[in-house]
């Protein structure tokens, strides 16, 4: 790639140094600063969940008790799940990158409700604090799904954990309301609906799911809390209640929540694929429509979590077919990304390596998803490591790879500096292989009958468990390297200049790091987003008077 001849310099005044002092950060209304603070919190949560993941893998290294007892193991996997799902994955890309980029990508100065945005951050911190206090003070042992009647009967501290997740849910709702309104009312002239960048479409679809599904979760958590406090009996068969109602209401949120985790990732990948293939998206329209399709069908698939909970044959069959529909939309996306890469001038960078990892792992995660959507097969695999491997392929293999891709792709945008590219590429390869080594054995274990949530196993499973733990160590090592070189680059990285990737994404039209109100002048966008059809020509930026 041709680099600009003159060494680029950081802009003198940008959002990071426009105001100084801790107070200016704590009271900021700037979506970029709020996004950055979210990013910091999320990385902290990821570290915590990751440490517990490693602890679990060490416990599973040998049969019998290795480093912790049974109850400690139950609490550890609950903490891992609660932190990773509720406190990291669900808010991850929307709250961090969505906040930072959405206004930039539609040429707005900020989100529609900046104060609400800050409130959303504080609610998240509050919810996370309550959850973690509950986990460390009393420890819940229910798993991240809080299934009744166990969650209403167990003696561990489920109440604060539920309350914390409830508060985090509010934060998600406020962010969703904000993003939808922003996309509807704040697009700059020229950005019609069919010229909205693909990442924004993905965040928009996600926000719709967040807004429509999260309240149901909120209510079901309130019911479980009341059931614990006042013995409601709504989910308790001994009082005439129905524990399955909990599963229905919980998965009505939590299955769409899987798309809350994956859709933003798909948005990141759509951006990065175009940028590093130097090609227009193979079909912008298909990527947009499949985003909308996934957001819609995602609401109609929750029953596939309940095939062995006594669902009727008709109900199970319907949910089975609806679940497979998601695979069609996902496949449309995968083919479109591949079509974008085909005969493009591929530029291998760290974000692009993560994109390749994403597509490969999403394919495996998705196909195993179709496999468990088949009711007869699911009866065999239900509650085994096969399911654990399946959803880790989606949540870690896909969502996390997309998160890392976005982190690297937008790092220069956020901080105006670059990270060492070669180290980045090497680490990306290490992480992808570490991931496969961790979770591929778990497919095999599950198929052999290893149940999930068990601290112990027969000796014949040990070799595969050792392989999985070895992979997890590689993963942990990889994240450590990333933390080191990105931390180093914050201060010492080479100055990136406005657009180090020569991307045609709208967000790169402003300086890196961007000024306080994103653009120095009101923007008018004439070219479509992701337009690489005129090589070497900077996109024309129309400027309103």
């Amino acid at each position, binding site marked *: 790639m041709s680099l600009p001849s003159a060494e680029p310099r950081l802009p003198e005044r940008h959002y990071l140094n426009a105001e100084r002092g801790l107070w200016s950060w704590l009271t900021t209304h700037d979506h970029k600063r709020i996004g950055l603070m979210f990013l910091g919190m999320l990385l902290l949560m990821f570290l915590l969940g990751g440490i517990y993941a490693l602890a679990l893998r060490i416990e599973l290294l040998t049969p019998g008790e290795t480093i912790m007892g049974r109850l400690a193991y139950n609490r550890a996997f609950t903490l891992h799940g609660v932190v990773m799902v509720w406190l990291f994955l669900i808010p991850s890309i929307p709250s961090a990158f969505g906040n930072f980029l959405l206004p930039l990508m539609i*040429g*707005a*100065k*900020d989100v*529609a*409700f900046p104060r*609400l945005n800050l409130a959303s951050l504080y609610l998240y911190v509050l919810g996370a604090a309550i959850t973690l206090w509950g986990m460390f003070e009393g420890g819940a042992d229910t798993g991240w799904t809080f299934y009744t009647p166990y969650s209403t009967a167990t003696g561990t501290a489920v109440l604060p954990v539920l309350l914390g997740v409830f508060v985090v849910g509010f934060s998600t*709702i406020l962010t*969703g*309301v*904000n993003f*939808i*309104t*922003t996309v*509807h*009312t*704040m*697009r*700059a*002239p020229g*950005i*019609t609906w069919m010229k909205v960048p693909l990442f924004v479409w993905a965040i928009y679809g996600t926000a719709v799911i967040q*807004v*429509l*599904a*999260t*309240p*149901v979760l*909120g*209510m*079901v958590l*309130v*019911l479980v809390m*009341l*059931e614990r406090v*006042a*013995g*409601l*009996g*709504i989910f308790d068969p001994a*009082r*005439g*209640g*129905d524990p399955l*109602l909990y599963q*229905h*209401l919980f998965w*009505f949120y939590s299955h769409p929540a899987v798309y809350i985790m994956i859709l933003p990732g798909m948005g990141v990948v759509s951006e990065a694929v175009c940028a590093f293939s130097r090609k227009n998206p193979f079909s912008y329209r298909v990527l947009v429509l499949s985003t909308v399709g996934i957001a819609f069908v995602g609401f109609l698939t929750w029953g596939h979590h309940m095939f062995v909970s006594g669902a009727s044959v008709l109900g199970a069959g319907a949910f089975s077919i609806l679940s497979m529909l998601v695979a069609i939309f996902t496949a449309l996306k995968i083919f479109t990304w591949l079509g974008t890469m085909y005969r493009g001038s591929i530029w291998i960078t760290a974000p692009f390596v993560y994109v390749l990892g994403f597509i490969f792992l999403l394919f495996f995660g998705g196909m195993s998803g179709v496999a468990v959507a088949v009711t007869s097969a699911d009866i065999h695999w239900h509650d085994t490591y096969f399911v654990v491997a399946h959803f880790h392929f989606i949540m870690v293999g896909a969502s996390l790879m997309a998160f890392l891709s976005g982190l690297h792709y937008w790092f220069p945008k956020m901080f105006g500096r670059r990270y060492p590219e070669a180290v980045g590429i090497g680490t990306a390869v290490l992480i992808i292989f570490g991931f496969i080594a961790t979770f591929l054995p778990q497919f095999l274990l599950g198929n052999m009958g290893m149940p999930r949530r068990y601290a112990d196993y027969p000796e014949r499973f040990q070799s595969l468990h050792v392989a999985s733990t070895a992979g997890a160590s590689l993963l942990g090592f990889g994240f450590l390297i990333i933390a080191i070189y990105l931390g180093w680059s914050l201060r010492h990285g080479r100055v990136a200049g406005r657009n180090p990737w020569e991307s045609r994404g709208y967000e790169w039209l402003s300086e890196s790091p961007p000024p306080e*109100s994103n653009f120095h002048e*009101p*923007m*008018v966008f004439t070219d479509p987003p992701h337009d690489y059809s005129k090589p070497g020509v900077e996109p024309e930026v129309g400027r*309103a008077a």
Partner: protein
Amino acid sequence: MVPHAEHFGDEASRQDAAHMGMWIFLATEVLLFAALFAAYSLYRLAYPEVFSQAREHMDLALGTINTYVLVSSSVLVALAIASIRKGRDLAAGVLLAGAVLLGITFLCIKGMEYAHHAKDKALPGAHYAYDKFAVPGASLYFTLYWIMTGIHAVHVTVGIGVLSVLCGQALSGKFSAAYHTPVELGGMYWHLVDIVWLFLWPLLYLA
């Protein structure tokens, strides 16, 4: 909706966004209650007899009076919005005060009902010991009753707070024919609280 160049360059686009945000928020409220209505439907299907007999143990008169009270307060809020659109802030403030008083009346009547049920020991869940209605599933009906009306009452309380603040602001002349978005948003919230009750009333008192 027309895209705008500036971060709310004009008042009209600010209002657009504010209204839209409120509508989306109301949608989340609807889904919040939807979970409860789903639970209600499930247990009504499971215990049809209980749910049809339960009516006899409810105070239909108080429930109906409360419906009138809440709908009337919604009318006052609607009139308040109509007044402030014409710039009559004193009238709007008085109407909002009336709506707040009716809201408080609603909560008082609801409290009386709760007191009756508590005296009969028709309490939710484990504390249910109502001897005149001791069939399987009866405790579930009352559990649902307490939760649905209880969470509704929480919303009424929040609404009373919102309307009180708006009332104070209107009387101190903060709003005018040109600027009254907060009154409209508060009104929308209050109407939603009202509408939810219009579903609770037939399901719990008339069914």
